[in-house]
C-alpha cells in the first residue's frame, strides 16, 4: 500500500516536472531588451567625430525635446537600410538625433555620411564598442528613444522599418 503511494507520488512528480519543462520550452529564448524605463548613464563620454572633442552624452540631450540615439557603422548594411528614415525624422520633426558610430574606420564613417546624408545633430564615436555596452546595446544598428527625464523609453534593436518610423512619429507628436 505504502509502496503504491510512493509510486503514484513519483509518477505525479515526473508529470509535473515534464509540464514545467514544457512550459519553459515555449518561453522566448532570444534576448529581448527590458521594457522598464532605465535612466541613461550620465557618466558616458564619447569623442565627437569631426572635432575629436570629448563630450558627455547627457550634455547633448535636449530637455524639452525627444532625443533619439542611433548606433550605426559604415560597414553595417542594415544601417544603410534605415538611413532614409533617420534623414526624414531629422528633416520633418523636432527630434534631437545623436549618432554613435560603432567600431568603425573614421574615414569610412565620414564618407558614409557625406554620400548618404547626415541626419544627426551630433555624431560621436565609440572606437572599441565599450560605450555602447554601457548604454545596453548588443550591436548595430540600435536606436533608443529618450524622454525629457533622460530615460530610455523605447529601444529598437535592428534597423528601423516603416512601423518603427511611424511609432517614433506618434511618440514625437504626443
Amino acid at each position: 500500500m505504502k509502496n503504491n503511494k510512493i509510486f503514484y507520488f513519483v509518477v505525479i512528480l515526473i508529470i509535473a516536472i515534464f509540464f514545467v519543462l514544457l512550459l519553459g520550452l515555449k518561453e522566448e529564448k532570444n534576448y529581448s531588451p527590458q521594457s522598464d524605463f532605465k535612466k541613461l548613464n550620465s557618466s558616458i563620454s564619447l569623442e565627437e567625430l569631426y572635432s575629436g572633442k570629448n563630450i558627455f552624452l547627457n550634455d547633448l540631450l535636449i530637455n524639452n525635446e525627444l532625443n533619439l540615439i542611433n548606433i550605426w557603422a559604415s560597414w553595417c548594411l542594415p544601417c544603410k537600410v534605415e538611413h532614409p528614415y533617420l534623414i526624414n525624422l531629422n528633416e520633418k520633426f523636432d527630434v534631437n538625433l545623436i549618432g554613435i558610430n560603432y567600431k568603425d574606420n573614421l574615414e569610412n564613417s565620414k564618407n558614409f555620411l557625406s554620400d548618404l546624408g547626415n541626419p544627426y545633430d551630433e555624431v560621436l564615436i565609440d572606437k572599441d564598442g565599450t560605450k555602447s555596452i554601457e548604454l545596453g546595446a548588443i550591436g548595430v544598428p540600435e536606436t533608443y528613444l529618450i524622454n525629457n527625464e533622460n530615460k530610455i523609453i523605447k529601444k529598437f534593436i535592428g534597423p528601423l522599418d516603416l512601423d518603427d518610423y511611424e511609432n517614433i512619429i506618434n511618440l514625437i507628436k504626443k
Partner: protein
Amino acid sequence: MKKITLIIVILLITAFHSNISFADQKKNIDHITKNLRCLICQGQSVYDSQSDFALSMKKLIRNKIKEGNTEEEIYIFLKEKYGEWIVYEPEVNKNTIFLWGLPLILFIFGGLLIIRKVTIK
C-alpha cells in the same frame, strides 16, 4: 657595481610582480566572462565567443576591474543593462526558487528512500 645589481634586482622584482598581477587579472576576467552569456551567439559564453559584442564586453570588464570594481559589482552593472538573462548562474528569487530548490528536494527525497530501504532490510 652594487648600484647596478640593486637596480637589476628591483627591476626583476617589479617585472615579476606585474606578471603575477597581470595573470591574476586575466584569471579574474576569464572567470567573469565564463559566467556571461553572449547575447549575439547565445550558445556561447562571452569567454568563448569572438563576436564584436563579446570582444567589447571583455574589454569593458577589463576596464571595470582596473577601475577597482568587484566581480559582484560588474554583474550588478550588466544585469541592470541587460537583465538577469546575461548571467548563466541565475540568482535565487521567486522565479528561480523551483529551479534551485527542486534538485535539493529530489536529493533529500531519494536519500530518505534509500535510508528507509536499508533500515527495513
